[in-house]
């Protein structure tokens, strides 16, 4: 598990077209472990897209990662991911498939959604939820935005860790 301030694990994961991508070297990178089937992930989804849109001009990259076991949750299959991307549900956010679940394990991701924000040096600067309540869109990913603002301004986020809330990551059995 990566502690706040430590260098986060590097990785390379394919997008829904099968093209591999690694971390970007952006001034800040937001990793969101998410999925298709979970109501918490869906409830926060528009806020994730809004954050990606609003911080794109400052060079921030937002990456969505689905690590769930499609054998037990077919709605989280690569094909289902592809359908959402083709339908425009992900906007400009790349949707990456962690089929082996290794990246989720390396980051100790627990829920969908679970958010990790890295700085330009790849150090983990925030981990947790986008904001305090999946049911209140007016919160607008406030916790993640505050962390991003601090990182981009060269400050430490006032709150570096919050409790991720959502469906458990669906690990493979056995």
């Amino acid at each position, binding site marked *: 598990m990566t502690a706040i301030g430590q260098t986060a694990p590097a990785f390379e994961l394919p997008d829904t077209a099968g093209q591999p991508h690694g971390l970007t070297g952006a001034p800040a990178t937001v990793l969101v472990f998410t999925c298709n*089937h979970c*109501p*918490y992930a869906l*409830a926060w989804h528009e806020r994730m897209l809004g954050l990606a849109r609003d911080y794109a001009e400052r060079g921030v990259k937002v990456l969505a990662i689905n690590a769930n076991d499609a054998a037990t949750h077919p709605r989280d299959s690569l094909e289902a991911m592809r359908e959402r991307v083709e339908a425009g549900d992900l906007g400009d956010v790349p949707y990456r498939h962690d089929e082996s679940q290794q990246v989720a394990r390396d980051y100790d991701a627990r829920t969908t959604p679970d958010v990790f924000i890295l700085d330009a040096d790849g150090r983990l600067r925030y981990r947790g939820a986008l904001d305090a309540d*999946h049911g209140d869109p007016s919160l607008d990913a406030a916790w993640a935005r505050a962390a991003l603002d601090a990182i981009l301004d060269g400050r430490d986020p006032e709150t570096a860790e919050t409790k991720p809330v*959502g469906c*458990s990551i669906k690990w493979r059995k056995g």
Partner: protein
Amino acid sequence: MPVDVELLFWDGCPSHPQARAELEAAMADLGLDPAQLVVTEVPTDDAASANGFVGSPTIRIDGVDVQPVDDPPALTCRVYRLRDGRFSPTPDPADVHDALARAFKDQPT
């Protein structure tokens, strides 16, 4: 005959305390005793199949799902749509209230 109100949940999904609180509030608002609520944990795939449990939480009033869906039994979090179209891990409290009110109204006097 009293209205049968049942909440089925899987503990792997964190939504059931909110669903229970909103359900009990709706029951109390309609003059039903929240103590009559039957709460059933669904802990295994076999139990999900046996109960026709399509996700957590599931609320049944007189055996009828408050938002019926055609999904297979599964230990998963259930996706609801609120009346304003937003996704939610729990049903719209107004839908629960209305379903209870209908069942209550249909009771023989």
